């Protein structure tokens, strides 16, 4: 069987249907049985000619990130396309508008920039769109058709997606099919000079294609979420949007609150009644939630907070990705306020972390923060989700009848430091929860021994999360035993770490990678053991300070090498590999 590994980039202006073209292409190819990883870049403005780039990698084997070089580039727009010519590999295809909409000066046309070795495909995109649908709107469909025709892909999966996408829009589906066919026929008739080959998808990969936020929503629903509260913020909003349409179908409630403080306050209020409750936000919202999360810690109320990170402090760069909210997730807020923080590394992980977060919040009576970022929230992957929910419906510590009554101790000291909780409505369970320090009964108490004992209780109870059932706290990949270089990664950028590790091993470097999913409580023994196996350790992450590297060094007392970028875009596999190679060479030189 022919292995397929093809990356397609589509470049255009906001409003030209660039992202929509990428969506149809990836959906159709996923429907045809290929595996997909796709990630789009777009500006903060809805219109206004900002640059949009849709990228998708189509494979028959599991891949973990996008590739540095694309095999196919489509330029819907000359201005935006030209800077991307360089990302096309030798013998790759550059598809572009043959007749630009406005007359262009010499050198402003894509054709003037195509590099030797790249194969140009000038296509009368606008003309075909106008001829078939009477409008320029369908240029993106012409291009999708052209790609399908040029590479000999079946029309059927594309028809299916077009029909589904424009089902409720009258004749639009028919119009788009016509534009697709026009592009397809021309592509199929074109003499193909590039060497991009789609192999058969082989064994059909039975999968759903989801982005990280949709996977989070699925995880919430499968975990039986009762209530959701949120305030719109990029890039977390689509979690709320998905749940807003799905939860009422299950008789569940979602409320858009007046701000993020209200979002976390309502979440904690609902959690206090025994409901499974969650909210979703980004860094600015998490900053506003910090005080209330401390109340969740103090009052020992379960809550789940999904945080999709974006770039920079203040308003920053809202439509770009970054991993710079690790510190606030771990430490945000005042006082000793321990909480559980987990960070999935791929779309499948988003689903699992979302569902498990509800179990953990309930089991350990604590806020649980699930850290995503824009790259993971918006990245599409084909994933095989379980048909039946793998999550516990109720993870509360059982409450014995005899505990209730006049002397009921809501905050009783126990062996596992978790106190069985009475819920409002239960006879004999009346108590007050408070943000003030309190004794076992929940009565305000500021005695030194009480504050120490309660602080210990709130910290120690979380340690059991490190062995939470059916949850991957960390995982090692690559060479076993002693290695030259180890890569330690977290969150969305771990895919690039993994691909860099594979590359290093292909180049003869003994290399392993460790992903850390649970960041608080920190799996210090496992990480220390990994560091001790490595000649040198590289910690790549998308923040300037090296927030994860700082955490690792503080927890393990071992030095690590940092690789930090804040470009607003995902890390590049080749850049991580270059660092790994540098460390491996330095070790060799030292040994010599």
């Amino acid at each position, binding site marked *: 069987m022919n292995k397929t590994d093809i990356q397609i980039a589509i470049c255009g202006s906001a409003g030209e249907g660039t992202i929509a073209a990428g969506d149809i292409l990836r959906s159709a190819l996923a429907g045809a049985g290929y595996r997909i990883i796709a990630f789009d870049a777009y500006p903060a403005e809805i219109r206004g000619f900002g640059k949009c780039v849709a990228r998708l990698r189509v494979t028959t084997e599991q891949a973990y990130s996008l590739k540095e070089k694309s095999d196919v580039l489509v330029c819907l727009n000359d201005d935006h396309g030209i800077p991307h010519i360089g990302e096309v590999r030798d013998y790759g295809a550059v598809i572009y508008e043959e007749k630009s909409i406005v007359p262009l000066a010499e050198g402003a046309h894509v054709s003037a920039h195509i590099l030797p070795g790249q194969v140009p495909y000038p296509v009368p995109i606008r003309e075909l769109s106008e001829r078939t649908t009477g409008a320029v709107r369908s240029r993106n469909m012409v291009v999708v058709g052209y790609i399908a025709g040029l590479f000999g892909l079946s029309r059927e999966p594309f028809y299916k997606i077009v029909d589904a996408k424009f089902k409720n829009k009258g004749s639009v589906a028919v119009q788009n099919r016509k534009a697709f066919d026009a592009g397809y026929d021309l592509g199929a008739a074109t003499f193909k000079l590039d060497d991009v080959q789609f192999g058969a998808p082989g064994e059909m990969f039975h999968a759903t294609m989801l982005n990280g936020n949709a996977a989070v929503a699925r995880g919430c629903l499968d975990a039986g979420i009762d209530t959701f509260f949120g305030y719109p913020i990029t890039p977390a909003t689509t979690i709320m949007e998905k749940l807003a349409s799905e939860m009422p179908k299950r008789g569940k*409630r979602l409320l858009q609150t007046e701000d993020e403080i209200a979002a976390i306050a309502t979440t904690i*209020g609902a959690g206090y009644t025994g409901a499974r*409750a969650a909210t979703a936000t980004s860094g600015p919202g998490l900053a506003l939630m910090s005080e209330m999360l401390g*109340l969740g810690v103090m009052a020992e109320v379960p809550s789940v907070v999904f945080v999709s990170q974006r770039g920079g402090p203040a308003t920053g760069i809202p439509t770009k990705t970054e991993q710079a909210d690790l510190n606030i997730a771990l430490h945000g807020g005042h006082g000793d306020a321990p909480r559980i923080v987990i960070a999935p590394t791929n779309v499948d992980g988003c689903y699992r972390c979302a569902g498990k977060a509800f179990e953990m919040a309930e089991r350990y009576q604590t806020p649980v923060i699930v850290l995503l970022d824009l790259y993971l929230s918006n990245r599409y992957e084909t994933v095989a989700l379980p048909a039946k929910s793998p999550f516990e419906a109720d993870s509360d510590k059982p409450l014995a009848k005899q505990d209730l009554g006049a002397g009921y101790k809501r905050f009783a000291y126990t062996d596992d430091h978790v106190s069985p909780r009475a819920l409002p*409505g239960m006879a004999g369970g009346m108590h007050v929860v408070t943000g003030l320090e309190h004794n076992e009964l929940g009565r305000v108490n500021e005695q030194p021994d009480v504050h120490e004992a309660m602080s210990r209780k709130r910290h120690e109870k979380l340690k059991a999360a490190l062995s939470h059932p059916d949850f991957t706290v960390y995982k090692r990949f690559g060479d076993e035993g002693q290695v030259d270089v180890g890569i330690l990664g977290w969150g969305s950028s771990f895919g690039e770490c993994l691909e860099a590790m594979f590359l290093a091993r292909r180049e003869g470097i003994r290399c392993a990678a460790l992903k850390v999913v649970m960041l608080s409580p920190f799996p210090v023994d496992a990480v220390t053991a990994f560091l001790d196996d490595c000649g040198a350790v590289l910690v790549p992450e998308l923040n300037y300070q090296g927030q994860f590297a700082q955490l690792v060094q503080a927890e393990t007392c071992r030095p690590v090498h940092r690789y930090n970028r804040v470009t607003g875009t995902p890390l590049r596999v080749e850049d991580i590999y270059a660092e790994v190679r540098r460390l491996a060479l330095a070790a060799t030189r030292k040994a010599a």
Partner: protein
Amino acid sequence: MAPQPIYLEEKLKEIQESGRLVYRSKAMPTWCPGCGYFSMVDGLPGALNDLGIAPKDTVVVSGIGCSSRFPFFVNTYGFHSLHGRALPVATGIKTANDALTVIVVGGDGDGFAIGGGHVPHAARRNIDITYLLFDNGIYGLTKGQTSPTSAINFHTTTSPYDNLDQPLNPLLMLLTYGATWVGQAYAGQPQQLEELMKEAIAHRGFSYLHILSPCVTFDKTDRTYVNLGELVCDMPPGHDTSNLSAAMALAMDTAHPALGVYYKTERATLADNFEEIVRRAAGDAAAKRATG
């Protein structure tokens, strides 16, 4: 006719048999002697008892401040939350469990300074909770600073040259925010307060009871029992509680704070709307199944 003597033993027996003591906790209130807030320690248990709402089905939610200590003094479920955040916490509780009677207790600083952003939204959503706001025009727990309802020229530690900021008019605000029950009581008239509490709790929807109260420790000049007692007055005869404009006109007359129900109306509650959304979603899902 000379007033009938009240015998302590008989009165104690009457209170014990009334059932209202079930709602009282063993904790002693932390307020200063003479504080207007003692009126609610007696009033709320009386109101709940009369309405037959069991302690186990009641949640009293508060923020931070003198009045916000109240949950500790009743034997119901209680959530003593953060400064200004009682309303959203209560919203979460009521959203998750309709069967509970949720009562929010707070002060003027808690509700209209730090928590002011939440009030309009609780009111406009018409969530079926009761908001008891104790307004003494001062920050008592931090020992006497200016609040958003302090009078002009009020002298405090943070306004040593007197307060020059225009005070808020909470009654007028709540009327415009869309509260479906708005009333005013005075801590110095505890029997009327208890009756109004009862009516506010029984109201289906968001009810707001504004309670004028003195701070006997930090305010010796403005809202004293003597001054408030002279100011407060009865509802003008014939006041129509279904007339929003009349209610607003009454609320604007701050020189003569009338006690009683200003306005009440019926509107779909937040829970009604949640149910309507579930119905619409079910219809949508059924429609999809039929066509697809």
